[in-house]
């Protein structure tokens, strides 16, 4: 429970700061960044394994590692979106919301039965809807938040229905006891499908993805980064654990579902990303396509699947946050969000252009960035089932995704612009965050011991 207690402590500290005189935004932000970094470093020690509260909460080394990835993501967001965070009038509230959502995600990853899972999922979703609304004076922010909360509530309803059906079908809600009760009868499969639909909504799997683009576009970039990286990452962790451990007896059912949905997600994500003009919508659809790739790795049903998914999400944290970070800096300083206005960016802001290029190539899966290794391992894991038609479709999607990532690189480096984005003075803290992400993107692929470490964690 250590990570959860630490996060709760930080939330209370923020609460007390807010209730007392309050601090100026700059110093408060610095304090928060410091505290989050400390949390990340401490995340590697004092971890105990075992279970609490009956078996509602359990902890293993792998879960600790997954939580650390999420904390790292939260820390990077606090660095990268510093410009917007300094200007927002309700900074402590924003972080209280974000950390509450993070807390919910931690409980979700550690949950041991369906009730705990549902509670923590709600704790993880509701604050995010409030975060999405944080640009209080912009209409599209409220619109995005409205869409988020309504779709979220709907999917929670379906989830609850599925949970009650599972209880009816098997007589238990405990994850440990479920596998032995599952025998693949149609009633159980029906219940499972409802559960699957709830996960699919949170992960933006097609056809449950319709909320994604509008919410990403409307929310402030800090909320979007959180949603796209941390929320998706945590749900992916829970999803894979649910499929491999809890619903293993229904393996044949969910394998086919994963293959079909993965192809649909990749194709739709890629096709829609081709047409986007707004950088945030573009990154939203690119995230959807990335989820399609994650599903490829998930379909493998062996240790290689878990390892490659966790590894990929680590890399995805760095690449996606770098991309959103650059978009955030430009949007905050100049209000520009249209890809056409990114033309000629290299002439005026070479640093930002290189970071964005690195991030986009990592998302596309081009060496020497880490994204290459991540994607290749996902595909290799997925190919283990010898479903070669599937793999060929996946490989073809790599090409389509490269095309739209190249569009942006081309705009930045090759296209001419009469009025390019002016030279931006980047906040040193944000610069540090961007460099950190860039280093992560380049190095994580070559630090092969990280992959072995994750593999080793599965045994425990």
């Amino acid at each position, binding site marked *: 429970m250590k990570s959860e207690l630490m996060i709760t402590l930080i939330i209370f500290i923020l609460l007390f700061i807010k209730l007392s005189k309050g601090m100026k935004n700059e110093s408060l932000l610095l304090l928060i960044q410091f505290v989050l970094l400390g949390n990340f470093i401490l995340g590697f020690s004092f971890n105990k394994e075992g279970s609490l509260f009956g078996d509602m909460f359990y902890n293993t080394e792998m879960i600790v590692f997954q939580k650390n990835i999420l904390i790292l993501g939260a820390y990077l967001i606090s660095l990268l979106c510093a410009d917007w965070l300094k200007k927002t009038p309700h900074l402590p509230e924003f972080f209280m919301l974000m950390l509450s959502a993070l807390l919910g995600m931690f409980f979700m990853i550690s949950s041991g039965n369906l009730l705990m899972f549902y509670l923590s999922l709600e704790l993880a979703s509701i604050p995010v809807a409030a975060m999405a609304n944080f640009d209080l004076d912009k209409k599209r922010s409220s619109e995005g938040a409205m869409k988020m909360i309504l779709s979220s509530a709907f999917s929670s309803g379906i989830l609850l229905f599925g949970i009650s059906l599972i209880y009816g079908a098997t007589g238990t809600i405990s994850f440990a006891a479920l596998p032995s009760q599952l025998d693949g009868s149609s009633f159980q499969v029906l219940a499972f499908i409802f559960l699957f639909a709830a996960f699919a909504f949170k992960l933006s799997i097609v056809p449950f993805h319709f909320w994604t683009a509008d919410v990403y576009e409307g929310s402030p970039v800090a909320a979007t980064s959180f949603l796209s990286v941390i929320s998706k990452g945590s749900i992916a962790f829970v999803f894979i654990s649910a499929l491999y451990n809890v619903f293993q007896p229904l393996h044949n059912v969910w394998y086919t579902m994963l293959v079909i949905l993965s192809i649909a997600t990749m194709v739709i994500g890629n096709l829609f990303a081709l047409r986007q003009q707004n950088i945030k919508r573009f990154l939203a659809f690119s995230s959807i396509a990335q989820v399609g790739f994650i599903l490829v790795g998930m379909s493998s049903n062996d240790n*290689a699947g878990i390892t490659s998914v966790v590894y990929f999400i680590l890399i995805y944290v760095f690449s996606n946050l770098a991309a959103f970070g650059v978009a955030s800096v430009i949007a905050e300083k100049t209000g520009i969000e249209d890809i056409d206005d990114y033309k000629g960016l290299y002439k005026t802001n070479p640093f930002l252009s290189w970071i964005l290029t690195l991030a986009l190539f990592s998302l596309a899966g081009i060496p020497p960035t880490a994204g290459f290794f991540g994607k*290749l391992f996902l595909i*290799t894991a997925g190919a283990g089932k010898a479903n070669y038609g599937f*793999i060929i479709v996946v490989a073809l999607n790599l090409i389509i995704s490269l095309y739209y990532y190249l569009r942006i690189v081309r705009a930045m480096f*090759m296209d001419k612009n009469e009025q390019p984005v002016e030279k931006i003075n980047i906040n040193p803290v944000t610069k540090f965050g961007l460099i950190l992400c860039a280093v992560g993107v380049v190095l994580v692929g070559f630090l092969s011991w990280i992959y072995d470490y994750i593999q080793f964690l599965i045994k425990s």
Partner: protein
Amino acid sequence: MNLLLIILIPLLTAVAALLSRNKQQVRWVSLAGSAAQLVLAFMLLFAFQNERVGGNNIQMLFEQNYSLFPAWHINIHLGVDGISVAMILLTAFVVVAGVLVSWNIEKMTKEFYFLLILLTLGAYGFFISLDLFILFFFLEIAVIPKYLLIGIWGSGKKEYSANKLALMLMGGSALVLVGILGLYFSSGHSFDLLSLSKLNIPVETQRIIFPLLFVGFGVFTALFPFHTWVPDGHSSAPTAGSMFLAGISMKLGGYGCLRVATYILPEGAKEYSTLIIVLASIAILYGAFATMMQKDLKYINAYSSISHCGFVLLGIGMLTKTAFTGAVMQMVSHGLMTALFFAVIGMIYERTHTRQVSEMGGLMKVMPFITTVFFIVGLCSLGLPGLSGFIAEMTVFMGSWENTDMFHRIATIIACMSIVVTAVYILRAVGQVAMGPLKESFSGLTDATWNERMAAAILLIGILAIGIIPRWLNDLIRPASEIIMNKIGAK
């Protein structure tokens, strides 16, 4: 002889170029780095010869094996045989010439040299990799630099060509990826090239995986009908970019075809050899005839490259030891020749600001050095004895003729006929450019500068070395190709 140096030196050169303060520093650093790599390539050649002469007949020399991702059985496995050494020498020659020819680039010089050296890093790594994953890694590393080089420093419809090139080559890589994964899973989870080649993979599997690999790599070598990226890609690229693309990048495909597809899947090669020969012959003839229609010098060379690279695929498809050796020789010879051709075209373009043959004439009067080199390169292209083109094509023909049946003989005859077509377009282009009346506006043009002379000289030395004393290249390549062909049970 530590093979890691071959990857390390370009990497250090690229980083040093990035850290340089001004343009002159960037240029000299890049030149020093690529020259050092050339020296290293020669050292590799001599060390290799020493080992072979000393009786060491292991297939791959200087092997090194480091575990990278044990969970996936991915190792950094490096090693060279005769074919790899020849390709590394070729790359080193072309890179030094490319660096020299680009001496006067003013726009974003630092980034240009950084991307160029990064590109060569990919090629060097590709030729010494013995692990399929690492091979694929180095193959893909070239995508970013190629795209940026053509898109930023190119000419004509550069963005379109850069896009087309990047996407088509990515398509080829995607097919190669599926093929590699197929090999990985059908062989009990191994990416190691040498161990894969010792396995007996069932024929049904080979029938599926071989076309994936061959077509995937074939896209890089302008296998018909996937050659459409070549004309636009080569013509829109900056000079050093075209030199590298045509000279080396197309050979990555040929090397992949022979090292990965043919070596590991011999039965697959036998099954598809007829199709390969047909496609190669189409490429040879189509490339030659299409070249006759071109009016732009760079397009002439691009289509001519399609035709000459057809010889490489023909040699591989014929499945005899001599033809195979000829295919590798053609890779080396064509690499040097086309690099020199593009270099000369670049020099002419820089002075006349046109690539249209009809707008040029009588350049011999003002640019004797450049036009003489132009003549020599043209003669090499049409296979004049004494130059490397003759040796390579002759070897391919002799090897192809060893197949006595009608189909192979006819294919050989068709390929020989293409030489006539080559002669027509080469002599016409060279003649029109070099001789005849000189335009008024061109009378003030200067001849080659020191860097251009050096670049041309380096490549010419290579061409003449192969053309006059082909023995050393043959002895280098032949044992390696014999090992590959023995697996097929070829003549």
